[in-house]
């Protein structure tokens, strides 16, 4: 257990309150540990600080070996999905003050993907699932000389699923994905939805065929974990339901 000292308050907000928080981290270093272990750090943090700031404070001032991915620090690159207090979230989008601070804030790697070091997991199976659903516009014939037309209504039809940042918060919160690594997982279905409902696209048939597979969309048991986890507010379960319906419609 280590205690860091007060450094300085963020510039703009002088009235920002400070508080003590204990971060309880699930650590695993493959070069030293045989299994994961818990580790506590108690820090002084501020009202505008996020979980990512607390992790940085530990890494930069206490233990440089603490390892996690991050880049943009404002919820746009999808690098830092973690299990925070038992729920999948982005560390950079979770403000400490919004968590109960009377008990430790637990941070663990997301589940269902192999842990490589601390909060770094193997993302390859996740991206592989995405690649397998033909996540690109499919068209036939020659390209037009100007843009393809699309009405604002048609554009709105698939807007929700264009927002995905591939953070894997949904897929790694899915109980089916935890027990069956063959299942594509919610993100891949979101990725397919984005094109299936794009009026310009002509690949829906093939994509639906892929998702009709035994490891495809029918494995979803509608637990809504994915929708709850999505930091972009995408209605993931609804998207999956729409894909299911498209399959049924096609069969009928």
């Amino acid at each position: 257990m280590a205690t860091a000292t007060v450094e300085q308050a963020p510039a703009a907000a002088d009235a920002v309150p400070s508080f003590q928080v204990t971060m309880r981290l699930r650590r695993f270093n493959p070069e030293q540990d045989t299994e994961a272990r818990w580790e506590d750090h108690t820090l002084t943090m501020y009202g505008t600080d996020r979980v990512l700031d607390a992790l940085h404070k530990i890494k930069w001032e206490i233990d440089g070996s603490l390892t996690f991915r991050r880049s943009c620090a404002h919820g746009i690159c999808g690098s830092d999905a973690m299990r925070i207090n038992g729920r999948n979230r982005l560390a950079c989008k979770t403000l400490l003050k919004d968590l109960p601070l009377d008990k430790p804030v637990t941070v663990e790697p997301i589940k269902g993907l192999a842990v490589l070091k601390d909060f770094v997991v193997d993302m390859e199976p996740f991206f592989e699932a995405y690649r397998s659903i033909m996540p690109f516009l499919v068209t036939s014939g020659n390209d037009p000389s100007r843009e393809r037309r699309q009405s604002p209504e048609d554009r709105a039809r698939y807007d929700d699923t264009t927002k995905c940042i591939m953070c894997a918060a949904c897929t790694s919160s899915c109980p089916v994905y935890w027990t069956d690594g063959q299942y594509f997982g919610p993100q891949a279905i979101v990725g397919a939805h984005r094109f299936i409902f794009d009026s310009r696209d002509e690949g829906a048939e093939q994509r639906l065929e892929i998702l009709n597979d035994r490891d495809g969309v029918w494995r979803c048991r509608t637990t809504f974990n994915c929708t709850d986890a999505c930091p972009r507010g995408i209605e993931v379960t609804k998207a999956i339901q729409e894909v299911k319906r498209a399959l049924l419609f096609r069969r009928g």
Partner: protein
Amino acid sequence: MQTHQYDVVIVGAGGAGMRAALESGKRVRTAVLTKLYPTRSHTGAAQGGMCAALSNVEDDNWEWHTFDTVKGGDFLVDQDAAEVMAKEAIDAVLDLEKMGLPFNRTPDGMIDQRRFGGHTRKHGEAAVRRSCYAADRTGHMILQTLYQQCIKHEVSFFNEYYVLDLLFNEVDGVRRTAGVVAYDLATGETHVFRAKAVVFATGGAGKVYKTTSNAHTLTGDGMAIAYRRGLPLEDLEFFQFHPTGLAGLGILLSEAARGEGAVLRNAAGERFMETYAPTLKDLAPRDVVARAMANEVRQGRGAGPNRDYVLLDLTHLEPAHIDAKLPDITEFARTYLGVEPYTEPVPVFPTAHYAMGGMPTTVDAEVLADNDHVLPGLYAAGEVACVSVHGANRLGTNSLLDINVFGRRAGIAAAKFVERAPWVELPESPEADTVALLEGIRERESGERVAALRRALQETMDANAQVFRSEATLKQALADIHALRERYANVSVQDKGRRFNTDLLEAVELGFLLELAEVIVTGALERKESRGGHFREDYQNRDDVNYMRHTMAYRTESSDGDATVRLDFKPVVVTRYQPMERKF
């Protein structure tokens, strides 16, 4: 150590790198090396849009776009390059649409366009709707669309590979590109990539500053690597401070907010931009707006408990309009400052945003080794490069354009080069310098902490080399940087492991930042004038007689091994437009 061989190696998988990869990959054997998964690149953070004179909603043409770019850049723009960009903008946008990019649409289904700072009709008469966009997620959509195309075309990615060195070899007395050295984050192994052509697309260097819209990973690696290998950096003293960063945090609120009608106000509620830029007001170019804001705060008209920010007011806009056009940035205000933009003005202050300077290139993205010669086989595109289409101040939307136009040109040029160029032998022990750099830091038992040095660097840069600069502040910054460089020689890391050692990489990145900070400040000291993003309080006017020229900074080592910056200069390419006073 492992060795690989590709015709073309592209370093970076943001917009510029992937656009290059699509061209190069379909012509010759290509690999993309990237320290982040492609979709994590900071292109995804871009919000507002990408300009092209499509004339979908208002009369427009590429010549006006060229003029705005030149004038916005305070006449330091190379006008031939700006013309290429503005002309090719139209196809660049249409190409993205054909790849599937979900642009916002007009009622009749065409790509919609909106206003953006500095973009005008008829050479400054009034703001024009030129920016093509997808809500305030334009960069995200570009990054996703290009990645999707890379999947379609089976581009080979090496993810989480950090390129740390550039390899050359002499052939008949001429330095030619031989490849790069990369560090695989997962395993800690060094890999040598032999290539006929290398394209640098490593993005910006915003982490030189403390308050920035840039990602933690934007540490100017490509620029610093090239600089260490003796290549020049052009115009690095020109850094853009975007007016509307969330106060205290630096997270960006796109200019699109003002394009959609938001206005800036001081503590008294006054629309102060009306005084600073009577015609374009809140949509004047960024350097003008950022200085006006900083000036309001200096004059005691700032808002908040410390009077240290101004307010971005969207409260007169319809909530439905805000949700449709600016959903993400309003969410940032809610999430990170707890402010509700429907009803409350948002605290904002300038944030370090964009490096106008970089590796000098031709319009075909060939990297210059000096004013007159290209380095055969080396290309650069995107924020790492300086073509120069942004001059002293980049116009909003012109970077997403730049990465697409010049990314594409880089990919084509590199592939063509490969078809005619012979293989260059790798130098002896190609990985030796990289291994020495890494092991030197890893093996040092104790010493200075990376985070402490980085914070000190960022603080001096914010205090002394930001919106307002003077000889005194710049000299202070330079002295601080030199002291930090000495301390950096003694830097150590706690993580001694091989796997996912981000502690070690942060130390290496800090080394890059220190190099670049020195170049920025040295160039700024020498430039005794004010132009675009570079404002000297002791020389407040533009001086075209002495300073209408590009800075070319070279790293030189004195006989006792001390590195210093040597400055040279390059003429600006002027074709159609003679410099005139900038009034907005």
